């Protein structure tokens, strides 16, 4: 009997994992999420080692070889200045991934925090925060981003800040709604009864239970952020040529789309693949973070 108990305890100890490794174990069972994760890792790898992967420099012009179709020399073809599109897509991953992730991080962190505070405290604080969000929402997102970049000046950092700030209201609204639906659960009262502070209750008990909508919105948001950044680059704010950026390449190739569609095809594909990878990974992560769905 006694030895049985010891064995049982040992088992329990062995099984005790941190939440992180628990999540990983569950994520590993989700094949599609693993595909997404792999693609994302490759993309990040490409962005970091762009200097070694790209066969040409991203701004190397070869005016005798403009608008070439894909060939063994230029596997994605060349653009109107004879620049190698493959190299530009590779270098472009740096900017696009940065803009996508950092802008969304800004929006999720600030918007999520504001939304959580508004939802949790309700009353005057809620009204104040959400009316401020309504003001932001009433301005079209791209217009808002334009005015922020115009105020802060050009540049990658300012672009990310602009795109981030302009999508804060979405996250604030989603998080607020989710927090309101959770905060009256009894386990929140139980946490209050044990003397937990408000911040601990929000971060440990409420937010983990409303991750699903946040993750879904954030993975879609990365795509949206890349496109918004592209839009800004297109009107001359944000990323300046010749720096490659997927969105800017897309809009740059727009004029040639009928005869030289590969100019838009490849950067477009890059965006599609990134977003696809993020979405499946986000779905998988959402399920993996929920112990209820553990099989």
């Amino acid at each position, binding site marked *: 009997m006694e030895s049985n108990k010891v064995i049982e305890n040992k088992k329990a100890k062995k099984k005790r994992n941190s939440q992180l490794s628990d999540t990983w174990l569950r994520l590993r069972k989700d094949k599609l999420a693993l595909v997404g994760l792999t693609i994302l890792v490759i993309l990040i790898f490409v962005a970091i080692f762009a200097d070694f992967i790209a066969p040409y420099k991203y701004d190397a012009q070869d005016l005798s070889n403009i608008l070439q179709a894909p060939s063994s020399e230029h596997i994605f073809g060349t653009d109107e200045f004879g620049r190698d599109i493959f190299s530009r897509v590779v270098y472009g991953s740096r900017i696009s991934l940065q803009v996508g992730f950092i802008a969304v991080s800004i929006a999720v962190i600030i918007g999520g925090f504001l939304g959580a505070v508004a939802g949790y405290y309700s009353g005057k604080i809620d009204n104040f925060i959400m009316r401020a969000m309504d003001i932001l929402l009433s301005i079209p997102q791209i217009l808002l981003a334009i005015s922020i970049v115009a105020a802060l000046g050009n540049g990658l950092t300012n672009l990310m800040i602009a795109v981030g700030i302009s999508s804060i209201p979405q996250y604030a609204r989603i998080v607020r709604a989710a927090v309101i639906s959770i905060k009256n659960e009894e386990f929140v009262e139980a946490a209050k*009864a*044990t003397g937990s502070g408000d911040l601990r209750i929000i971060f440990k008990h409420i937010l983990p239970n409303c991750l699903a909508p946040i993750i879904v919105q954030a993975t879609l948001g990365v795509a949206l952020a890349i496109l918004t950044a592209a839009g800004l680059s297109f009107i001359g704010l944000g990323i300046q040529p010749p720096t490659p950026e997927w969105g800017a390449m897309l809009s740059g190739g727009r004029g040639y789309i009928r005869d030289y569609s590969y100019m838009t095809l490849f950067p477009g594909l890059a965006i599609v693949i990134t977003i696809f990878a993020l979405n499946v990974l986000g779905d998988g992560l959402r399920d993996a973070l929920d112990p209820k769905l553990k099989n």
Partner: protein
Amino acid sequence: MGDRLLEVRNLKKYFKTKEGMLHAVDDVSFNINKGETLGLVGESGCGKSTTGRAILRIHEPTDGEVIYNNENILKYDKNKKKKMLRKMQIVFQDPYSSLNPRLSVFDLIADPLYVNKIYKTKSELSDRVKEVMDLVGLEQRLINSYPHELDGGRRQRIGIARALALRPEFIVLDEPVSALDVCIQAQILNLMNKLQEQLGLTYLFISHDLSVVRHVSDVIAVMYLGKIIELSDYKSMFIDPKHPYTQALLSAIPVPKVGAKRERIILEGDVPSPVNPPPGCGFYGRCKYREDICKEKTPELLNIGEGRYVACHFVK
């Protein structure tokens, strides 16, 4: 009679609603002695749970005093309140929604210890968690399980373990068994009784189920529309209920005997709305003894001798 541990004086909790003030708990007073159980009964929406939560300041009371160990805990600041909560805990009604679905059994029970920084090392913490699990009869192998994997009885044991982790003296049991089926109810009630003897706990036992309350309580208080209308030791309450509402309530308990006959008092009408209640007795509209005075004057909870208190103009 033991020493007085908790004294509730004129406790009030009003909620603002669109229609007006909702008097959830209206001028409630009672005492609980150390090591005893006060059973608080009443129908749904009469303010039982709100009373329990107001005592622990989960919902801040509107007015009144809660005197615990000769100190008014409603005057405590944030730090003192946190210390107070170590001594006073609560077990919730629904073992499904009172446990955070994202946390494992270990994390759920360790959370109060962690929040109050009771233990410095991890091994001390996990020893205490295991100790509490033994205390409430939870198998050690469940330590990494999540609540959704367990049945209602085990979940409620987790809820009890969480409350016990901080070594409290006083526990509010907010309908701890009403979400469980009958045989599990008995298990949990026996566990409560065992823990009370073992640890010298004092309970405020909130329930709508009279047979359950009878099983555990030393003193019973009956609530109706935010007020206590009758308070007495459990024996005399069941033998000789004084208030017409209590009489009706007790006559509704099924008798476990074939062919047993008893007089049932069927109440007519509904509970009036607790929003902006008119003066007078809350039971006025449903009482068969009603007279004009009941409509004008709210009866007070008066001592009628032998430690019994009744709020009715006609019980002396």
